[in-house]
């Protein structure tokens, strides 16, 4: 027995079967889980693209025009299409998860999941409309 055992975050298990790195391909629900987790990569990707847009904007009209031209290349169109699908997947899974992560009670009664999910989608629609209005207003 060592005097000072290493502290581990998890309960130590004496025997562990090796699990393949591809464990998440064995079952559809596992695959959906990992795909959902990977949406975060595309979320970060778009955050960086948006930052890039304002970086270009800070540099002047030519830099902004170059940014717009760059987004018209097949490379970015493909990447943005994939990213859009992943971000949509994130939005839908996130909204559906909200009532499970956050239980809301009104006058002692639990607000039905469907109400919370519907409110999420309503907010989504409304905010999307506002953003489109702001960006498209000529």
């Amino acid at each position, binding site marked *: 027995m060592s005097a000072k055992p290493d502290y581990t975050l998890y309960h130590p298990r004496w025997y562990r079967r090796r699990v393949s790195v591809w464990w998440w391909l064995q079952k559809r629900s596992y695959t959906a889980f990992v795909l959902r987790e990977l949406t975060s990569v595309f*979320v970060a990707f778009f955050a960086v693209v948006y930052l890039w847009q304002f970086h270009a904007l800070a540099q002047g009209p030519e830099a902004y025009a170059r940014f717009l031209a760059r987004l018209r290349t097949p490379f970015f169109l493909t990447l943005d299409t994939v990213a*859009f699908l992943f*971000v949509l997947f994130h939005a839908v899974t996130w909204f559906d998860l909200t009532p499970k992560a956050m239980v809301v009670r009104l006058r002692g009664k639990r607000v039905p999941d469907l109400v919370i999910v519907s409110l999420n989608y309503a907010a989504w629609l409304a905010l999307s409309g506002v953003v489109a209005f702001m960006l498209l207003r000529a």
Partner: protein
Amino acid sequence: MMQRITPLLWLLFSAGGTVAALLFPVHLFLTGLAFPLGWLEAPDYEHLHRLLTHPVIRLYLFVLISLPLFHWAHRFRYTLYDGLQLKHLTALIAVLCYGAALLGTAATAYVLWIIP
């Protein structure tokens, strides 16, 4: 240290996830697809500049870019642990992920600050 700030990191993760869910689809659809493909006309330089004269818009953009970066950092960190079974690299991965999000946040603040 990690134990103490975990609630804060989770809060940033969930706030960022909500921002990304509510606002990224429309921004990405417009900027990444509708404008480049010519379905809709991209806002010109002057239009965006006019929008940016409002401090509220700059604050909005700061939140829009920064919080989802923390959302990514938190989620991606656990994806690396579970997906690639890298539990032994816990500290390194955490530093890299949250460090990148912090760096992105600083860059966002700087860029939004210097736009005239």
